[in-house]
């Protein structure tokens, strides 16, 4: 009897260890796979020409990513500019000001929206945002455009990353000890002064981390962006011009990429760029957040 229990215990431990170790190796394996696959591209292209070259002609063996990188950076940056202020204001509102009922309800609604698929955001963008952007461009600037643009992509993306930023910032604000607020109030501070000087100050690095997490989500988001960005590989002159992102490049080149030499390798390289960037961003952000949570307990 005792023996069987012992054996079960040992066996279970072994199986779990295998699962746990392979789980932890997953990221590294992914990284290696993509690196190996994208190695071939470096036989004929330098990193410099890949990242800064403006020519994307797989048939001619040219794989310049400049416009795609620019497109990705613009879309990411603009969507953060929209989402971060709104997300931070909303989270302060929900964590510090709103009546408990509104705040509890809003938090679950935000969570639900974090789970809505990106094609749904995409289709909403196509139905509402794209025509609206076209209309605005026409009315205000006299431009005749389709509306599939940098601005449309950024608006749709900003709504997708809003829940990420808001959730983290709310969690951080709620983590600030109530006593710190009491101390500030007792010195005669108003609510806003307390929020500004004490609460935000205490979690300031965490807000940065939340923004970085939002950035990295925006960076890799594919379907919704692809549906509304217009996908033209050129430098946008203004927010109404179409853009082409790295993620959309990968998605759109599926199928063709196996038939042309080096093509698949180039696409894998793009994927590697996304992976490395996102993992880097996420690691920095998570480390910052862990720091805050750990120091706060003391």
């Amino acid at each position: 009897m005792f023996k069987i229990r012992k054996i079960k215990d040992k066996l279970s431990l072994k199986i779990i260890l295998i699962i746990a170790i392979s789980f932890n190796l997953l990221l590294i394996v992914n990284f290696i796979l993509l690196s190996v696959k994208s190695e071939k591209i470096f036989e004929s292209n330098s990193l410099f020409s890949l990242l800064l070259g403006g020519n994307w002609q797989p048939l001619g063996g040219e794989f310049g990513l400049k416009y795609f990188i620019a497109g990705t950076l613009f879309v990411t940056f603009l969507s953060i500019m929209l989402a971060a202020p709104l997300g931070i204001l909303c989270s302060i509102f929900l964590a510090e000001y709103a009546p408990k009922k509104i705040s509890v309800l809003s938090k679950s609604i935000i969570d639900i929206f974090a789970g809505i698929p990106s094609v749904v955001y995409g289709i909403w963008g196509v139905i509402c945002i794209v025509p609206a952007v076209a209309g605005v461009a026409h009315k205000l600037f006299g431009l005749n455009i389709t509306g599939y643009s940098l601005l449309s992509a950024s608006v749709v993306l900003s709504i997708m990353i809003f829940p990420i930023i808001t959730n983290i910032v709310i969690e951080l604000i709620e983590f600030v000890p109530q006593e710190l607020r009491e101390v500030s109030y007792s010195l005669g501070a108003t609510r806003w002064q307390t929020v500004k000087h004490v609460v935000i100050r205490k979690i300031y690095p965490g807000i940065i981390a939340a923004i970085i997490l939002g950035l990295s989500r925006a960076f890799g988001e594919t379907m919704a962006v692809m549906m509304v960005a217009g996908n033209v590989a050129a430098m946008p002159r203004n927010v109404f011009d179409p853009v082409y992102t790295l993620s959309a490049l990968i998605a759109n080149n599926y199928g063709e990429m196996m038939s042309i030499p080096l093509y698949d390798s180039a696409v894998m390289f793009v994927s590697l760029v996304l992976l490395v960037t996102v993992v880097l961003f996420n690691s920095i952000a998570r480390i910052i957040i862990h720091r805050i949570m750990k120091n706060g307990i003391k």
Partner: protein
Amino acid sequence: MIDNGHITIKNLNVYYGKEHALKDVSIAIPDKKITAIIGPSGCGKSTLLKSMNRLVDCMDNVRYTGKIFVDGEDMLDPEVEVIHLRKKMGLLLQKPYPLPMSIFDNIAYGPRIHGIKKKKELTEIVEHYLKEVALWDEVKNRLNSPASMLSIGQQQRLCLARGLAVKPEVILCDEPTSSLDPISSQHIERKFIELKNDYTIILVTHVLRQAKKLADYVIFMYLGELIEHGPAEQLFNDPQHELTKGYIKGVFT
């Protein structure tokens, strides 16, 4: 009842949701004395203290009735300007809670909020109050380092100085020495005795020894009710109520 004191509480009831945490408490706090609030834990001492500068507002689910007069104004009146009443009362909590900023900024926080902008003036204030709590010599060379770098005992003195810097009339203390080592505790206790010439001090404590040592006036609470109050000697030497007798003899704590 004394009606000309800083603080007079009339028929105060506080509820946390359904829990009736303070039951019809009425008391006048004597001026320029140390008043100790004693009682077993959970009896509503902190609640009473936090009602006095209306910090209970900041909690969820709190309801209260009654009046707390501070210099003649009813603190609990929804119309009253809470900010300027709160400023009259400094607060010292169980643990030191330095604000997330430098030592200098911790002290300057209150004065800045109340409109003092000049660097010179602020520097004087910071120096004055750090000296007041005998912290100046220890920190004068690192005023710009984060307050969290100080030891717990130093932090608590910093918090006291921070409270004094807005020139309160009353100091509310919630077991201010419970997280400190004996030496730091003594420091704070000695300070209180000095301060009572200029301030009204209300001290929540569960250390009877501390209450005996410091208090001029004592309030004994039990399960949300004010059981007995009176001058320290009278309450400690000749308690009227059975519960008070029991508590003082150490039958329950």
